């Protein structure tokens, strides 16, 4: 037996003559009984197949047992996209038999490319090709393997060159076998899909793990600031990240960002950006310098499509200054101790990794003790988005303005509102990084 389930065999054609009820001489009781027994065993044989190739092999030997004069048997299977036949099923005799059927049906041109959608209307019904029409070649049957209206494949059987044509009862029996094949094929394909899904799930778990490892668990209190961070991954793990590094007494630098794309590639890119950020932040660079360097390194090292939106904020509670640089990210909000909220640091440049020499601007504002800075990813804003409040900025300002001056409570209220909007499967991660300037050094001195 060949690997594709095709084979050559020579059996005498007298056996053929005994086959269908319309053919004289009629079947002997013995051969009819053994034929029935053979037919009864076919479902079990076919469903024992471990994979499609195995199924082709079982089909081949079953058909050969029932029609001993069969010269070639082929099981063409459609590819997953339904555009053509799988390579291993179309090679050798399968393709040849299909061409023959198509040439008899005058659809040879489309058959030359074996495009399933074009062949489908012609081959969705069984086709009988008589032997006399092609000298030296046997009769051929093409039986569709169908699930509802989808053509899953074709069972092609060729008899010996001088054999009599296949008959309608032959066709009926072959259609019965084709129906069995369809069931087994569907089951095998469902198993493959399940395996692929498991692989995707593993991929997702890996992405979550990478992300979890790289998102810092920030201390709630560092020199001069109270800090609270929240991260809620979406089903499709994205590449949100945040970090806050203390760079001296009452000074800190924070970043929040969102890597475009999902899954492991986004998580890996995110891990690199957060690693680079720590290094640059500790070197004492300004937000503008940090983002400029991150941009350069991402541009050089990542693919053309990759980009990262990010905002970097440095807070100096001792000198009362805040610096913001924004690379295509949603702007942070600043709430003062009277509850006024303003948006700070609108994007001055494109996301990181897009343009080689992007020139980022930097906003500078005064920072008062008691000021609270809220940084977020657009998942938060989008979740609060309504028709009347494009991008949900009004809702967010309102929440921030009326919340007590407690960074943890502010985050909880925002997440509570987001979750109560009833969005069950968020497309995006939600990340919040909230910082309050408490200025220990200055307070201690005062």
């Amino acid at each position, binding site marked *: 037996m060949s690997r594709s389930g095709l084979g050559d065999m020579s059996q005498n054609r007298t056996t053929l003559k005994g086959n269908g009820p319309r053919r004289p001489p009629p079947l002997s009781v013995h051969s009819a009984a053994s034929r029935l027994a053979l037919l009864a065993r076919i479902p079990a044989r076919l469903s024992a197949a471990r994979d499609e190739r195995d199924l082709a092999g079982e089909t081949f030997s079953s058909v050969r047992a029932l029609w001993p004069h069969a010269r070639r048997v082929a099981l063409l299977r459609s590819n997953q996209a339904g555009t053509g036949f799988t390579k291993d099923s179309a090679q050798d005799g399968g393709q040849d038999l299909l061409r023959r059927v198509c040439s008899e049906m005058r659809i040879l041109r489309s058959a030359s490319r074996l495009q399933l959608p074009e062949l489908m209307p012609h081959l969705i019904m069984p086709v009988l090709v008589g032997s006399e029409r092609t000298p030296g070649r046997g009769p051929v049957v093409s039986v569709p393997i169908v699930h509802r209206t989808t053509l899953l494949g074709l069972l092609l059987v060729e008899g010996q060159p001088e054999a009599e044509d296949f008959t309608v009862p032959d066709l009926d029996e072959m259609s019965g076998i084709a129906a069995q094949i369809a069931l087994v094929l569907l089951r095998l394909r469902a198993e493959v899909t399940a395996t692929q899904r498991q692989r995707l799930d593993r991929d997702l778990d890996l992405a979550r793990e990478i992300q979890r490892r790289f998102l810092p668990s920030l201390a709630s209190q560092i020199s001069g600031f109270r800090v609270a961070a929240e991260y809620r991954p979406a089903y499709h793990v994205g590449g949100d990240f945040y970090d806050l590094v203390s760079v001296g007494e009452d000074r800190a630098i924070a970043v929040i960002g969102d890597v*475009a794309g999902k899954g492991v590639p986004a998580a890996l890119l995110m891990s690199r950006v957060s690693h680079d950020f720590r290094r640059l932040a500790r070197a004492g660079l300004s937000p503008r310098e940090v983002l400029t360097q991150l941009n350069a390194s991402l541009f050089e090292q990542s693919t*053309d*499509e990759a980009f990262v939106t990010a905002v970097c904020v440095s807070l100096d509670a001792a000198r009362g200054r805040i610096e913001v640089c924004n690379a*295509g990210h949603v702007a942070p909000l600043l709430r003062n101790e009277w509850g006024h909220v303003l948006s700070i640091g609108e*994007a*001055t*440049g494109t996301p990181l990794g*897009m*343009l080689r020499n992007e020139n980022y601007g930097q906003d500078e504002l005064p920072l008062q003790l008691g000021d609270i800075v809220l940084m977020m990813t*657009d998942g938060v804003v989008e979740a609060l988005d309504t028709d009347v409040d494009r991008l949900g900025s009004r809702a967010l300002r309102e929440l921030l303005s009326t919340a007590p001056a407690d960074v943890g409570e502010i985050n909880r209220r925002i997440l509570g509102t987001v979750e109560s909007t009833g969005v069950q499967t968020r497309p995006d991660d939600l990340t919040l990084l909230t910082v309050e300037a408490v200025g220990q050094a200055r307070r201690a001195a005062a």
Partner: protein
Amino acid sequence: MGLRRIDAGEITTVQVDGTLDITVADELRALSRDLLASGRTTIVLDLGQLRLIDSAGIGAMVALYKRVVDHKGSLKLKGLCDQPLAMFKVLRLDRVFSLAK
């Protein structure tokens, strides 16, 4: 839905309708590779009928922009509106691409 390509003289106009998500982004990537390989580097993206773009779509456009610049060609975006325009503004891409009505 999807992409339509119109070649007129030196200019190739690619019409992107409906949604530019990961599926269409793949097509756009393949098409831009073909265009640049065959020396067609003056490209107009007609986005008048584009209603939605996601990060994969943005990525594909940026990739196209970078490759066109590498080939010393030109890329113009025409008719950008609605959510895609808002997205371009948020990402500050309106400064990078040359936009036309």
